[in-house]
């Protein structure tokens, strides 16, 4: 891939582009927080961060390792309780965008962070929902940053911890969930978004030096491509400097690796 920045850096920079100015963003630590902070420092100064441990609108310091790390609480507008943020902001409908992670993301954007295998035959226990189910139930948009590996993109999650579009069109409405909803997945190979009609994830953009077929080869379900698939734009302006010097100077999350897709 283009020298000078890593896949991981471009993933964070691309994710930041999906954060809109004025969004109230429910976010944990790691790459999602880097992406949110980058957006705040560039095109989205009016972004409001909400962190699950009860933190509202902090001025995050580099580089928190936990949602209970004082670095995510620095100069917050309020430090409160889980009820404050999960109940009175998230379920109340005041959060626009939520970052979630998971071991599996399926065709309809459902997310599994509970177990690999089936309750009867569990192969690996995962941490569980945390606030992810709450975010997927109440946010208007979900943003996921993950490595693109076939095992991570099955046709159907072994366990649906957090609801995407469930079984497809009308699934959320039938379940009693808000229908205004969208999922964006930023991987090291592509940007996936749900098709507005079928609700299935499809390729919206490609990372540099990869192809639709290469992405499909790493995806466990049939993957359409949007009509106008473009390549993810390279880092612009200050993006890389902000990431490396201001947001993650000690490289707690941004590794130096320069893996190129073909090499994987």
């Amino acid at each position, binding site marked *: 891939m283009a020298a000078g920045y890593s896949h991981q850096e471009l993933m964070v920079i691309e994710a930041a582009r999906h954060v809109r100015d004025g969004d109230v963003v429910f976010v944990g630590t790691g790459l999602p927080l880097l992406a949110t902070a980058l957006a705040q420092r560039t095109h989205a100064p009016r972004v409001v961060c909400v962190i699950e441990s009860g933190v509202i609108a902090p001025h995050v310091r580099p580089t928190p390792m936990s949602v209970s790390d004082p670095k995510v609480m620095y100069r917050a507008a309020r430090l409160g309780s889980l009820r404050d943020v999960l109940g009175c902001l998230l379920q109340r409908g005041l959060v626009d965008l939520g970052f979630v992670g998971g071991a599996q993301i399926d065709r309809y954007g459902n997310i599994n962070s509970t177990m690999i295998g089936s309750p009867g035959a569990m192969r690996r226990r995962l941490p569980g*929902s945390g606030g992810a189910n709450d975010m997927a139930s109440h946010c208007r948009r979900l943003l996921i940053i993950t490595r693109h590996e076939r095992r991570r993109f099955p046709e159907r999650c072994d366990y649906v911890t957090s609801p995407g579009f469930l079984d497809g069109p009308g699934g959320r409405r039938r379940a009693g969930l808000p229908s205004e909803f969208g999922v964006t997945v930023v991987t090291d190979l592509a940007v996936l978004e749900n098709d507005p009609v079928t609700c299935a994830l499809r390729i919206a953009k490609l990372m540099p030096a990869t192809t639709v077929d290469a992405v499909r080869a790493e995806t466990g379900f049939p993957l359409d491509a949007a009509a106008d698939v473009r390549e993810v734009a390279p880092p612009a302006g200050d993006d890389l400097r902000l990431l490396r010097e201001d947001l993650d100077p000690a490289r707690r999350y941004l590794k130096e690796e320069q893996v190129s897709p073909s090499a994987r």
Partner: protein
Amino acid sequence: MESPATTRNADKVMSAAEAVSRFVRPGAVLGMGGQNVGRCPMALTHEVIRQRIGDLTVVGCNLSLSMDQLVGAGLVRRCVCGSGNLERFGTTFCWRRGIEDGTLEVEDYSHLAMVTRFLAGEMGVPFMPTRSLLGSDLLGPSERTRPGKAVVIDNPWNPGEPVVLVPALHPDVSLVHVQRADRTGNLIIEGFATHEPEMIRASRHVIASCEELVPEEAIRQHPEHTTIPFLYVSAVVVQPFGAYPTSTYRYYDYDADQVTAYQDAARAGAEATSRYLEEHVWGCATFDAHLAGDAGRPRLEALRLAMRAMT
């Protein structure tokens, strides 16, 4: 429902050993304070491990270090929680191993659903509604009919709109570590409060360890800052650095090395975990002995300074 009335208004200061032996019974439903690497009640859970009080059900939102050590010590039968993990420090390995090998039961909720269960408990109602869980596998198929961990009903004001009800949760005893308390049990939590306010008020008994014991008069100078009034609290344990190696907001940061040391042992397996607990818990007569042996003044000072820079 039993209330902490018996200890109202009294001087509730006692040692961790006395508080745990008086209020934590084998088979108890144990409410766990703290979140991830913040304000875990380590001094109190070390004491539970030291007294080997078992058959516990541990309940909370995010369960992390304190829970995992109880599981590693073989004292936990069941967890009811929203997650078990330490984020960047990895998962809670004893918890994961126990679930995978079938020796530990777990009932999964979302964090909001757990907060909602504690909210029902503190408000004295049998259940509370939430719009989380809908459509997910956190709701078993049975939940649409038979009330178990939850039940789905129609919104009476809008038939056809499903709403999830979750049952009130009343821990037999909750363990929390707070910044300040007075002798009567008035508690002040600074910074993020997690699920503790609701959990504490829902509990039959509460043991609170604190960084500082303050005069009752100091609390009563600013009563709007009292997080929890004494009526809910059964015991106050004065234990500086009582959350070590996790952080206490405005007092000290977490100790990444010590957390990692435990995680390495827990990841390695039951034997390594036992060795860790032998050295750091059973091998220490008190939590202060653990602090002196495993942290030491200079390290604790450094954690204080690291926190001061962030607050």
